[in-house]
């Protein structure tokens, strides 16, 4: 991917993920999206006089889990600080965040991009409280504090992406990873995963240039598009002898441009200082052991293992690893004895079609929502492999499993789809049809293969579709020669 530019590009991302906790970070209000405005609020998250924050244990655990998965140095002492700025979505007019002692530092993450594996380094990962939401209408702004105080983890990369495409590839891989970790649902549209980007360009070897920050990027595709636009814009400015102004720009997805926020951006002085209301967090060995134990095989490693150990194609492995539930399901099916490649093909094909039909997704595989347990798929594939049923019947049986929530053998038996005819029975049926159609026999003997299909069709009809067409073919060959 040769860059079409004479400049060197430096891109960094600042990602916020909403942690999947039951309650907010500092109070017992539910952490839930989409409820009636101001229905998940209390004196604490509304910043009432006299209230104090009480740190949520689970938020801390999930934070360390992410930090560990991202190969960070884990803080032996984590500390919260007050970040002071006034904004009406921030109920205390300071945000409790981390500054000097975040939970994670110096991490890195590997992802696929441009056909290879790339590594991005993280500057830090820290836990903080989210702000509320506002709707601006006419002369008024409407504040909803349901989101105020929900758990937010901020991940800051080094400015080391060289191409907008890398940033997009990374973001998709990162999203997949936090979903696998079970710490965030990764929904960019609803804002549970948010991404701001910063970009600067400079003549090669000269180091970082003056950066602009781009906000309002609510899909990974927009991250790429906005960065591509912003790089072109900066190039034009520099080529025409201008200077880049350090500023925040908003991505306008309708016009596909970035636009300066043009706010009177007073140099922010957040006046950070240690949060006196929260003691520092000093995890003991048991906590670190628990975090270590909570680690899982990350999607990239799992993909590599699925291709190497099971011979899946990269596309198949990608498809299966996209959702942890699907990957777990696939491996369960294989462990129960199914052929890996067949299982993969089925999961990507017929199973996907059926899930789609009943409004489920591969993320539901292996859950109670999904009638096709790993055992059932394994049995189904087993019957297919043993020639008890053939492909078309197997597909019918699959649909019936979803419709009737029954085991495949039961369905096949009830429906009489069993390839009841053993080879001897089938031979008699074929012989009878050949006897009834002497002309066809002659044609086949004369070298015309077309009438074979006619015979197979007759046999299928006679067996109500249960006969294996391949077996029928070989019997025809044997009887006619």
């Amino acid at each position, binding site marked *: 991917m040769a860059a079409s530019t004479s400049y060197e590009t430096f891109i960094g991302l600042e990602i916020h993920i909403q942690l999947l*906790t*039951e*309650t907010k970070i500092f*109070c*017992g*209000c*539910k952490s839930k999206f989409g409820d*009636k*405005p*101001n*229905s*998940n*609020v*209390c*004196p604490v998250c*509304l910043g*009432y006089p006299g209230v104090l924050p*009480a*740190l*949520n*244990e*689970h*938020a*801390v655990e999930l934070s360390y889990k992410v930090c560990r998965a991202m190969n960070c140095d884990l803080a032996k002492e984590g500390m919260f600080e007050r970040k002071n700025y*006034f*904004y*009406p979505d921030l109920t205390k*007019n300071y945000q409790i965040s981390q500054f000097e002692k975040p939970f994670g530092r110096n991490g890195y993450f590997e992802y696929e991009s441009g056909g290879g594996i790339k590594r991005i380094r993280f500057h830090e990962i820290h836990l903080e409280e989210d702000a509320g939401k*506002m*709707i*601006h*209408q*006419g*002369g*008024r*702004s*409407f*504040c*909803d*504090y349901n989101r105020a105080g929900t758990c937010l983890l901020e991940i800051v990369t080094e400015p080391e992406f060289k191409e907008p495409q890398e940033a997009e590839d990374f973001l998709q891989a990162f999203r997949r990873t936090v979903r696998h970790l079970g710490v965030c649902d990764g929904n960019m549209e609803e804002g549970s995963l948010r991404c701001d980007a910063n970009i600067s360009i400079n003549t090669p070897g000269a180091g970082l240039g003056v950066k602009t920050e781009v906000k309002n990027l609510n899909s990974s595709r927009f991250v790429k598009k906005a960065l591509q636009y912003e790089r072109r814009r900066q190039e034009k400015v520099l080529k025409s002898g201008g200077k880049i102004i350090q500023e925040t720009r908003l991505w306008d997805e309708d016009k596909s441009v970035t636009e300066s926020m043009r706010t009177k951006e*007073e140099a922010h*002085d957040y*006046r950070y200082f*240690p949060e*006196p209301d*929260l*003691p*520092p*967090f*000093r*995890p003991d060995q048991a906590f670190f052991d628990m975090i270590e134990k909570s680690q899982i095989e990350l999607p990239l490693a799992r993909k590599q293992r699925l291709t190497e150990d099971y011979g899946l194609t990269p596309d198949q492995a990608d498809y299966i690893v996209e959702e942890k539930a699907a990957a777990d399901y696939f491996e369960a099916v294989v462990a129960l004895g199914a052929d890996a490649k067949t299982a993969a093909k089925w999961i990507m094909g017929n199973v996907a079609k059926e899930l789609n039909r009943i409004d489920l997704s591969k993320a539901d595989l292996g859950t109670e929502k999904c009638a096709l347990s790993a055992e059932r798929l394994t049995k189904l594939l087993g019957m297919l492999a043993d020639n008890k049923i053939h492909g078309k019947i197997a597909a019918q049986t699959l649909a019936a499993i979803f419709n009737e929530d029954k085991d495949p053998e039961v369905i096949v038996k009830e429906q009489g789809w069993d390839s009841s005819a053993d080879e001897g029975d089938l031979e008699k049926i074929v012989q009878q049809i050949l006897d009834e159609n002497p002309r066809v026999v002659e044609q086949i003997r004369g070298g015309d293969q077309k009438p074979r299909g006619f015979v197979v069709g007759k046999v299928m009809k006679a067996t109500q579709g249960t006969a294996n067409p391949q077996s029928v073919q070989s019997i025809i060959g044997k009887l006619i020669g």
Partner: protein
Amino acid sequence: MEKDDLLITAAQAQLALSAEEAGRLETAVSEMLDYFEMMNEVDVSNLPPTTHALVRENALREDNPNPNNNQEDLVNRAPENEDNFIVIPNVL
């Protein structure tokens, strides 16, 4: 403190000081800051800063929801509210 600094500080603190007020507070602010200068006499090179007077164990709360029933009462305390939103002049 210089007057400019006072005004920058007031802006950061979101206080709309009248000229008369600024004049009045300027003296008091400077008096106090001059007093703070005394801290420079102390050799602090080997002293760690103290934020929390007593060293404590970790304090964490379990991730269990609290039933709270008075959200509407809380919203109604806002000087202006409508349809469960708290309302202010348009921020943008």
